[in-house]
């Protein structure tokens, strides 16, 4: 028995298919609220797009991207869709997951049944990624309708954006595991996500950044997302796709592991 109590929270994840009924539970709740939540999820990104894309775009005109000149609205749309994936996943894995974990004690109820904490955390991670994919799909639909891009390679952007959702839900779950209350998440948004938005080449090319900042910004997960998704909007293939995919994968796997360890510590009584 004593060897059990010393089992590290850092031991490898023990995952099984028991995450699926937990995911289904979240899906069933969301199905009842899908339409209002859809409006909330896509209204804000579309306002950014209209205000900045058409408003600021008229002043900026075209953006030089390598050997190509790109209308600002297209430049912005191809970056902001990554931001939408990031925000949707982060909100779900922070505020909503925290409600289920801490406020409603839904996780405690689930763990009285034969479901491990590891599977609950996996289910929450995949659920937040699914929410991101859903949001992104709706926004892509509107962008297609507005004629911002008709690139057939958007079909490839779709699974990439799911990967972006996965990465950011993994990161957010670290902060979920550390939170004492909802206020804590404000720090995460204002100190991490907002600066990242400005450093990752969504609103302006990263070439505008001072060299030192730029050197760091190159390795941010949101930069990797933009580097992968933006060319697909322009009907091109990304340069260095493996490097950017690797950045996303490293952030996802590393963060999931840390998030799981911290969540296990939180629940270990």
């Amino acid at each position, binding site marked *: *028995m004593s060897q059990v109590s010393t089992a590290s929270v850092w031991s490898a994840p023990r995952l099984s298919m*028991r995450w699926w009924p*937990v995911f*289904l*539970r979240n899906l069933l709740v969301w199905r009842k609220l899908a339409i209002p939540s859809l409006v909330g999820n896509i209204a804000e990104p579309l306002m950014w797009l209209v205000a900045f894309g058409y408003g600021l775009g008229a002043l900026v005109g075209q953006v030089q991207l390598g050997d190509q000149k790109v209308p600002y609205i297209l430049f912005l749309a191809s970056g902001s869709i990554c931001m939408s994936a990031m925000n949707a996943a982060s909100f779900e894995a922070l505020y909503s997951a925290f409600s289920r974990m801490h406020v*409603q*004690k839904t996780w405690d*109820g689930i763990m*009285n*049944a034969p479901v491990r904490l590891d599977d609950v955390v996996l289910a929450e991670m995949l659920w937040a990624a699914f929410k991101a994919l859903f949001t992104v799909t709706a926004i892509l639909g509107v962008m297609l309708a507005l004629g911002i891009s008709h690139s057939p390679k958007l079909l490839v952007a779709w699974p990439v954006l799911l990967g972006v959702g996965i990465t950011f839900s993994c990161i957010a779950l670290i902060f979920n595991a550390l939170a004492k209350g909802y206020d804590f998440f404000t720090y995460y948004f204002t100190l991490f996500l907002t600066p990242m938005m400005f450093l990752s080449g969504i609103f302006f090319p990263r070439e505008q950044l001072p060299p030192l900042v730029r050197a760091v910004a190159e390795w941010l997960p949101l930069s990797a997302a933009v580097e992968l998704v933006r060319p697909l909007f322009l009907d091109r293939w990304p340069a260095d796709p493996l490097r950017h995919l690797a950045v996303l994968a490293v952030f996802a796997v590393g963060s999931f592991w840390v998030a799981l360890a911290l969540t296990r510590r939180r629940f270990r009584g």
Partner: protein
Amino acid sequence: MTAPLIDVSHLRKRYGEAVVVDDVSFHIAPGECLGVIGPNGAGKTTTIRMALGLATPDGGEVAYTLDGTRRTMPADALAIKARLGVVSQFDTLDPDFNLAENLLVYGRYFGMKDAAIRARIPQLLEFAALSHKAEAKPGELSGGMKRRLSLARALVNDPQLLLLDEPTTGLDPQARHLMWERLQLLLQQGKSILLTTHFMDEAERLCHRLLVLDHGRKIAEGRPRDLIAEHLEPDVVEVYGVGALALAQDTALRALSARVEVSGETVFFYTAQAHPLLAALEAHPQLRTLHRPANLEDLFLKLTGRQIREEG
């Protein structure tokens, strides 16, 4: 002899310097209801959490023999929990689902097929006396209804052993009696129950055996009637009213009783022969007296003291 469903031996748990469970052992035989009683902070909930593999013991072992196979916590947690039903101290019902959906979603956590769960939902709701509320949400239910839904949810997998942490705390008498009736029914059906409670009448009514915990240690164990006979005089005379407290020092009255206790404004005389004592008390007609058999509450207060506990 059949193996006990749960066999807890020498369980120990500490949080920092504080030892919250200290060398606690107990078992539950098939068909038995074991009550765990003790003041707040005695270690009841921590013991249940360790029995469920949710807290890791610092020593000792929790073993289950369900369906004839011996398994230990937490190594075989999933196989064990597949055959357990749990009602935790605080409701964890899903506020966004109606009652039927709550049961359906919970059954899925056990790997049950939707059709199998749906077939059980009407009888589970009927058991909880909630058939008329199938479409309601937990937020619309009274406290008693919520607890009964939690109990019905714990039965979705047809468990062999139920672990109930204070299932009637906060309920009014009607709701409590209905819960007792349901638990009696489960015992008649051959289920076994581990129950923690603060209510001595509940423990006396439902439990075949009791475990008394205090400061993390087991201080008594046995059948309710046996425990009372072992630790207490059979009769109690309570005296209260103006001037009652002075009687606690009255040598004549003290000589007629085996033990005298004072709590608040009331004096408790414990005795094997109440009649001489009652006759002597007739000299104080202004005081009110209550003559009754010693009960589990007397036992509990004798064993754990009358002081209010920190959390109480």
